Each structure stands twice: as C-alpha cells, then as structure tokens.
C-alpha cells in the first residue's frame, strides 16, 4: 500500500527493537475463543501476544504494553474498534502503532471507514491463519509510518 515502506523507518526510535526480541501483538476481541485461537496462531509465528477483551482495555494495553501492532475487532464493549483507533491516533505515544481490523462485519462501509481512519489492513472473519500472520508481518515491517510521512518529516 505505502510506497515509502522501509525508507522512513529509522527516525521513529520507539519502534526499533533488538532483532531477537519478539514483536508484541495486541489483540482486542470480546470473544474468548477467538482470543485463544489468536494467541496460539500468533505465538506459533513467534510473536508475544497481549489480549484485551474490550475497547478500554485495548487502549490501556496499547499505552502500557508497547505493542508493535494492534489487531482490533470492530464490535466490542467499552469502545468499538473505530473509537479505539481514533483514540490511539489522538495520543502521541500510540499514534503510530499500525492497526489491523479483524472483524466479523466486513461490510463495505466498515472497510471504507477503516481505510479512512488509516488502518493498515482489514481481515474478515473467518480468517486464514497463514494469511493473517503475513498481514501482521507486513504491518510490522511498515513500522507504523503512515504513507507519505517520510516526505513530510525529513
């Protein structure tokens, strides 16, 4: 998606980590079984996984847990996925974390809204595990640098 992937990476110091340290994925979903499946899937792919069961917890863990990427459900109690994304973008410390939607509501309207809010990806449930891991990796590589940011911030 972003033409500048990889070029604007170094200026954002917090996203840099030692190569061996596993990246943390924050998963926000109110369905316990899905959270369990994601923990296994992402754990198997070598990620550390943090789980939030609602929007408020997702925001707290996004601030405190230092996730490299966030997977958001749309329908959640205490702040739906869109609200969470807006709040994340409003705070400097979470504004650049790449966010992916993982949702059972893949309507066009939701896809468009996610894209407009700057989501790094949109995956429909039921998802393909291998594909999901690929999408998460891609988002991590992009490092949360929004398209064009490398041009605006020299």
């Amino acid at each position: 998606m972003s033409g500048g992937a990889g070029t604007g990476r170094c200026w954002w110091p917090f996203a840099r980590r030692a190569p061996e340290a596993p990246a943390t994925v924050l998963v926000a979903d109110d369905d316990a079984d899905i959270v369990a499946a994601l923990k296994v899937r992402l754990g198997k792919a070598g990620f550390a996984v943090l789980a939030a069961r609602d929007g408020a917890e997702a925001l707290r863990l996004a601030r405190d847990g230092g996730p490299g990427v966030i997977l958001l459900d749309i329908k959640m109690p205490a702040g739906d996925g869109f609200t969470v994304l807006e709040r994340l973008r409003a705070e400097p410390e979470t504004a650049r974390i790449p966010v992916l939607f993982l949702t059972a509501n893949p309507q066009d309207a939701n896809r468009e809204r996610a894209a407009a809010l700057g989501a790094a990806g949109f995956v429909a449930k039921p998802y393909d595990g291998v594909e999901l891991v690929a999408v998460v990796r891609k988002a991590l590589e992009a490092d949360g640098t929004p398209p064009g940011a490398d041009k605006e911030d020299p």
Partner: protein
Amino acid sequence: MAAILIVGTDPERAGKLGSACEAGGHRVRRVAPEAAHAALPEADLVLVDLTGPDGGPLADLLGGLGATPYPRFVPVIAVTRDRVADRVAALEAGAHECIGHPFHGAELRARLAGLLEVKRLQDTVVAHEQSLQSANRHLMRLGLAKDEFIAKLSHELRTPLTAICEFAALVLEGVPGQLTSAQRECLETVRANGHHLAGMIEDLLNLSRLDSGEFTLELEAVDLPGLAAETLQTFAPQAQRQGLRLALVSGEEPVPVRGDRRRLRQVLANLVSNALKFTSGGGEVTVGVRAERPRGVAWIEVTDTGRGLDAVQQRRAFDRFYQADPEGHSKSGLGLGLSICAEIVARHGGRIDVASEPGRGSRFAVELPLVEAAAGARADAGPWPAPAVPEGGLA
C-alpha cells in the same frame, strides 16, 4: 346519496336548488358564502349560485372551493345566468361544471350524478393509492428488517465459525501434537465444511448488500490477465488435488477495464470454483482473457470439460437459489454464486452468459467494457449500454 352544500345569498334560489337535489335523494345544507369554507369538509359536492347581482364576489370563492387539496376531491358546480360568457367565466374561475339558470331539476340531477361518479372513481383511486403506499411502507420496513437480520446473523455465525475453522487449522498444523492420518482426515472434513459454511454466509451477505443498495464499486484500472493469474494461483492446489489441468490463456497485450478489483476477482473465483467443482479428474479448466478491440469489449471465458448443463440449466443458471445440480450434490451451497456474479458484472456495464453441451463441458463468458473504448469506439460498440457506474464511482 351525497351531501350537497349549496352556497348563495338568495334564500329563494337556494331553496329551489335544494329541493331539486333532495328530489334526487341527496342530503342538502344551505350556507351563506362566508360560511362556505367551514362547511366544506362535510360536503361531497358544492353548488354555488352565481345568478344574483352579487355573483362577482361569489366567483372569487369558486377557485378556493374547487381547489381542495389532493387527495380529497370535492366537485363544484356553478349555477350561472344562461350565457356563454358567464359559464366560461365560472369554469375558468375553478368550477368543474356549470348549469344555466333557470335550470331544470332533471338536468341538475344528471350533472350531479356525473360529477359524483367522477368523485367516486377518484376516491377509489386515492383509497387504492393509500393502501398501496401503506403496503409499500410495510414492505420497506420488512426489507430493512431482513437486511438487518442477515447482517446480524452473518456476524453472529462468523464468530463461532472463526473459532471452528482456526482451531481445526491449528490442530491440522500439528500445534497440539502430531495427528494420525485418520484424525487428520476427520479434521480436514471439519475444516472443509467450515469453509463451505463461510462461503454460504458470504453469499447471503452479498445478496443482501446488492438488494439494499449498500453494494458499492471501488473503481480503478484493472488489467484482467494479471487479475486472472492472481486468482488462478489460489486455485492451483485444489486443481492439483483433483487431478485437473487449470490454465490461463491470454495474449501479450494488456486487457484493461475499469472495475472493482475485489468484485471482479470474486466473479473469476466463483466461475473457476464452479468449473472445478463440476469437472472430474483428468479434465481441464481454462480461463481465457482477451480484448475485442473493434467492439471495445474485454472477454473473460472460463471453459471446462465437465459434465455440462442442459438447456433448462443454462437458462436458469443465473437465477437466485437455482442449483444446476442433477445429482442433488449436498455441497452445492445456496445457489447464489452465479446470480451474484451476474449482478456484479451488470454493475460494471457488462454481461455474463453460458454455453454448454451436456457431457462435454461448459463455457461461461463475461463481457466487460474495455477502458480504451473511447467515445469513437462506443458508436459501434454493439448492444451494450454505457457502464451503469459513473466515472467517479458510486457513493
């Protein structure tokens, strides 16, 4: 039997008019001009007496009385002196009918009957219209409820299905430990059925989006051979498992169309998936992509060597919920895939068709407007209308 309102200033003439009406079995009420509007709601028909010296101001009343707002209709008859100019003036002022004074009771009653019949017809039409409107509102509410239900149902079904499919996949990948081949086979069945169910849920949701107008196209330039190659790649493992040859045939030159990449891929995937489903081992599924530049159209043709479709199946192939499956295949789904394809293609300004011979195979052909088909080429571009989608895409 109607309620007649008689408006006038001369009690004697009003009395005569009233008696003539009552002789026809109508109910009569006589009022002075200033009380006419207040009495109008109870009247079926109004008689205005313009024969006196004060006919002028009364004529002003006519327009107001004759213009009862739709859907109510109250006919107005003007009683005038028996002169053409007076009659014309009354009609122009808003009367629906005129009668000259002195009048004959029988003629007055005949004119009343004629106008009352017009009113009866009009009232019938209005009643039908209102009942249709109310039925339509009811249907629209039902339609919305149905769409809402399907959207909600789809969400509620997807969530547990996600857990089913993903845990089956994780176990198959050996996460909790190695599987015996019998265990593997059982779980493959769980997973395959999970995916089948997911596909049906997706079809239902697509259908409901198409019906509710929520279905939008994100238009961009799409090169069909590239899209076909991408799509075919995802089917290569399945074709291999089935022992089928799956091939893409396209020339060197690009075949550009303006379309929604995701939707067009959905069309291709559906056609290829069908072709694979109905073709047995050793057979062949070919996807051809080409441009027919003189006509300004692009073609996608999906050809198989499967069991084919008879004439009835071909005719009904794109009908909703129709399943062209003679053996009652239990995995044939909802019968929505091709109808959704046809809708998507139609919204791109194209069309889809099938040719088949039972026992020999089928060919599904999709025709889409080529991007290069500029204004000049359009003239002889054949029977297809311009794309249904405006340049900027749909809201």
